[in-house]
């Protein structure tokens, strides 16, 4: 915040963003305007902790608590889970019937049973149809078994529907498959009850034929045929179970949904041409000539509509046109214009537009599905990347313990003894932390070894902070910006200082779904390392950058589960330091440019000389 006044002339977007983040997080403006009453200063954890809660309540009873409202993706919440968390359910002696019904419906035994029943139903129906008209008395036991099977199947389907109603009445109607089930089963019931009873009752001829005529039921009546179809439709339910077919049906429905406007436009055109057709062909419809095949085709609106559809499918249009030409009163010009226009517009252009839209929709749907998969992949990679970073920082602490003893004689060690001891403790913590993280696959451990090489690069760079100081004093006469150089040195020192502070000051509280225990490990990314390596792998830097570029968006997206607990003053300091860092980096960049320019000038001069 202070730098706002010092470097007021230098406007950096990043620094501004950090500044505004600071103001946002701390509600700084409200505080400074004296409205600190209206700003929440405590978190949910303080309320749930009873001792702290007491202390808070005794202090000031009107304080506000900050709730973090980020939506968490918990996945699908089933009806059973919802029921379980309701108060009446939790406080009752035994679970309500609906829970039991839901459990039964979800259990695999029951669903397999239903599937086998549907198969049986189909087979029974097939055999029944074959044997329907035969009066072979030897087949009577078979017919009896078929009927018993029929009744049993119907009964179990009705039972299934009752169970679903028991489980949740209102949700039953929201699912289209359930409604379909209900309609089919009701049709089935009607068929069985009406058809079978009256069929049986008409064997003895005691039933009055008039009643039968009233009900309109006989063995071959249309309604019975229709109701029988319901039983066949039940087998369609099988298709709902298979995932692939469900995906295809969903894709089809989505494609159709996006084509609604096209179909509406088509309907409008149908309407236009139907009404126009009635008027245009009035003379033809009213003509008294004989042997006109298509006379009634344009007589009124309904027929006209059907004729327009016939023309849309390009069926016998030329014959119809020649028929119209037979009537002398009908004008040839207008009728041919009508037919040709409709053929071009409807059958050729519209049909191809429909095909084109379907193709693009299918492509879009496929692309969407691909995108979802790619999204999942990116998340997975980001997860891998994150674990890698954590492992790097873990190993970062490991390394000095192993190597510092070896290189102690070679290079002046910048360790202080207590720092070493604390690092050993830190490494122990990290080892058990990394053991907990051992769910990482073997490939990642291979990657961890690879990160050692990158590791060496960062450690090298840290030692250079101190090296740079030494090197600078040598060439301060060559560069006339020595004073500013010292400034950047201070900022770099502050930079490493900040890292050390941060290392000691925060804990991580990762609330991942799997692990409920809080994992505490102070992560010290690059503070501890001062052992330097001479080897430097330039290729690793390229890897690092591309790695970061690839994984950063995924990392940003997936960071929903982890929350970091910061102490307040360190958070403030962190933001301040980050802002300063931006300005310092910018300055350093400018200094580099100056140095480069000077050197090139110097070069040119000396070459001239």
């Amino acid at each position, binding site marked *: 915040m*202070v730098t706002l006044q010092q470097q007021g002339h230098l406007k950096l977007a990043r620094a501004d963003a950090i500044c505004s983040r600071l103001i946002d997080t701390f509600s700084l403006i409200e505080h400074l305007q004296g409205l600190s009453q209206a700003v929440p200063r405590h978190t949910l954890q303080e309320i749930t902790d009873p001792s702290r809660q007491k202390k808070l309540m005794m202090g000031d009873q009107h304080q506000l608590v900050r709730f973090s409202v980020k939506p968490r993706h918990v996945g699908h919440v089933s009806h059973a889970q919802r029921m379980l968390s309701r108060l009446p359910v939790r406080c009752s002696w035994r679970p309500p019937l609906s829970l039991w019904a839901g459990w039964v419906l979800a259990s695999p035994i029951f669903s397999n049973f239903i599937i086998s029943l549907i198969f049986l139903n189909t087979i029974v129906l097939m055999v029944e149809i074959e044997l329907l008209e035969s009066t072979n008395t030897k087949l009577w036991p078979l017919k009896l078994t078929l009927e018993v099977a029929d009744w049993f199947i119907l009964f179990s389907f009705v039972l299934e529907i009752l169970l679903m109603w028991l489980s949740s009445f209102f949700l039953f109607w929201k699912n289209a498959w359930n409604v379909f089930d209900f309609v089919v089963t009701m049709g089935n019931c009607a068929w069985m009850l009406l058809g079978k009873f009256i069929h049986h009752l008409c064997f003895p001829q005691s039933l009055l034929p008039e009643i039968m005529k009233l009900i309109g039921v006989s063995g071959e009546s249309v309604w019975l045929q229709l109701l029988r179809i319901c039983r066949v439709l039940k087998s369609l339910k099988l298709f709902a179970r298979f995932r692939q077919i469900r995906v295809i049906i969903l894709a089809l429905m989505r494609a159709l949904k996006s084509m609604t406007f096209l179909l509406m436009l088509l309907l409008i055109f149908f309407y236009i041409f139907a009404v126009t057709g009635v008027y245009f062909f009035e003379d033809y419809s009213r003509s008294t000539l004989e042997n006109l095949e298509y006379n009634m085709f344009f007589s009124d609106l309904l027929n006209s509509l059907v004729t327009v559809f016939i023309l849309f499918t390009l069926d016998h249009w030329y014959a119809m046109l020649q028929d119209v030409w037979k009537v002398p009163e009908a004008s040839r010009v207008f009728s041919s214009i009508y037919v040709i226009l409709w053929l071009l517009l409807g059958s*050729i252009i519209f049909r191809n537009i429909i095909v084109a839209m379907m193709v693009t929709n299918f492509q879009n749907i496929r692309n969407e599905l691909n995108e979802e998969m790619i999204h999942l992949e990116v998340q997975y990679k980001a997860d891998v990347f994150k674990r890698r970073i954590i492992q790097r920082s873990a190993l970062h602490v490991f390394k000095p313990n192993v190597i510092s003893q070896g290189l102690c004689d070679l290079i002046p060690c910048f360790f202080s003894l207590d720092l070493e001891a604390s690092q050993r403790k830190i490494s122990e913590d990290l080892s058990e932390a990394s053991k907990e993280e051992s769910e990482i696959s073997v490939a990642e451990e291979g990657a961890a070894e690879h990160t050692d090489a990158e590791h060496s690069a960062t450690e090298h760079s840290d030692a250079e902070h101190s090296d740079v100081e030494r090197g600078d004093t040598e060439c301060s006469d060559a560069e006339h910006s020595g004073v500013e150089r010292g400034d950047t040195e201070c900022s770099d020192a502050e930079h490493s200082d900040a890292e050390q502070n941060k290392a000691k000051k925060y804990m991580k509280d990762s609330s991942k779904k799997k692990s409920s225990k809080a994992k505490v490990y102070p992560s010290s990314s690059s503070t501890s390392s001062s052992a330097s390596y001479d080897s430097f792998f330039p290729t690793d830097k390229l890897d690092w950058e591309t790695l970061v570029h690839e994984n950063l968006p995924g990392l940003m997206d997936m960071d929903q589960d982890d929350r970091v607990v910061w*102490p307040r003053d360190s958070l403030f300091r962190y933001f301040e330091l980050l802002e300063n860092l931006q300005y310092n980096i910018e300055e350093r960049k400018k200094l580099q440019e100056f140095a480069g320019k000077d050197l090139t000038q110097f070069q040119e001069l000396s070459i001239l*000389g």
Partner: protein
Amino acid sequence: MSQHYYQESTRAVSSSLFDTASEARKDTQFQEFVRKVIRSPIFQNIMISAITMNAVFMVLWTDYKLRYKLFRVFEISEVLFVSTYACEFFMKVYVDPINYWKDGYNLLDVVIIVIILVPYSLHKIKGKHYRYHNIADGIQSLRILKLIPYSRGIRTLITAVGQTVYTMASVLTLLFILMFIFAILGFCLFGVPEKGDLDNWGNLAVAFFTLFSLATVDGWTNLQEQLDKRKFTVSRVFTIIFILLASFIFLNMFVGVMIMHTEDSIKKFERELMMERHMMLTEEKQLILKRQQEDVSRLVNTQKSGGKGFSELVEDFKTTLRHTDPMVLDDFGTSLPFINVYLSTLDNQDATVKKLQELYYEIVNVLNLMLEDLPQEKKSHSSEILSD
């Protein structure tokens, strides 16, 4: 209500029409009022219901008996509908006379009004028993096209499809040229008066029809039979070649071209939508940022008007922060992976800078050495230049 507007707008139109061309509108208030009326949802609902009722009535009037019985209803409803459409037309022209003609849907409105006036004028000009009266009645069904501007979905569809119109037109022209060539060929081959098939190939128009029938492969076997009966040997080759060209190649090429263009136009449309949304979001973010900065600068300025200075206030605030106060954050900028990644990247950057510096030192060393090796007068010359 519409009559009332009609009268008002006619009075106003006559006075303002002369003004608009040359100078600014003098009746801005009324113009604004009428514009508000046109854009209001009530007006749009009225128009949509009027057009739908008109369409339904037209369906009813196709039946002659109904028309005969309810003749008065027919006349009155016609008057109502025509007056509504005319009202709308005049109001829209009044609001914006010059830009009205630039929008395609407004031109469609004008065309439909002209079509509506055709039967009446035909009656007047040609008398009662003109044989083409039913044609004029027939094209009244185009009135339902007025419904299209009120539905956003259909409008976007038409914009998307409308861009493929040029391709469509070119393919159809090609088809026409092909049919023309084959028609002339067929006429010369099969339409010769003596032993030719005069019904189907007698004159150019009929030949066109025959060829169109072949292209849409409807009933082409009958036509081929006719030619076979007259023992034309070339006819089979002719027919088959034409069917291959027109039906298989051309009409399917049509489909392919349409698919390509529909894809392109839909993609472009979606990209535009995304860009719009993106821009809106960035604008909002800028607004929030600016407001914050204004607040901060205002606070900075309060130090001049007495009271504590801004930085002192901030320092005071900092002292109130306790180390044991936890703040739970889950945004990306304060999360551990970000810090790790950022610091590692900064370390790499430092490494690069260090290497660069070493290179600079080397350059300077080399140049120094070069300078020492130079002969004396050149050295003084160059040192003079250096000291400048």
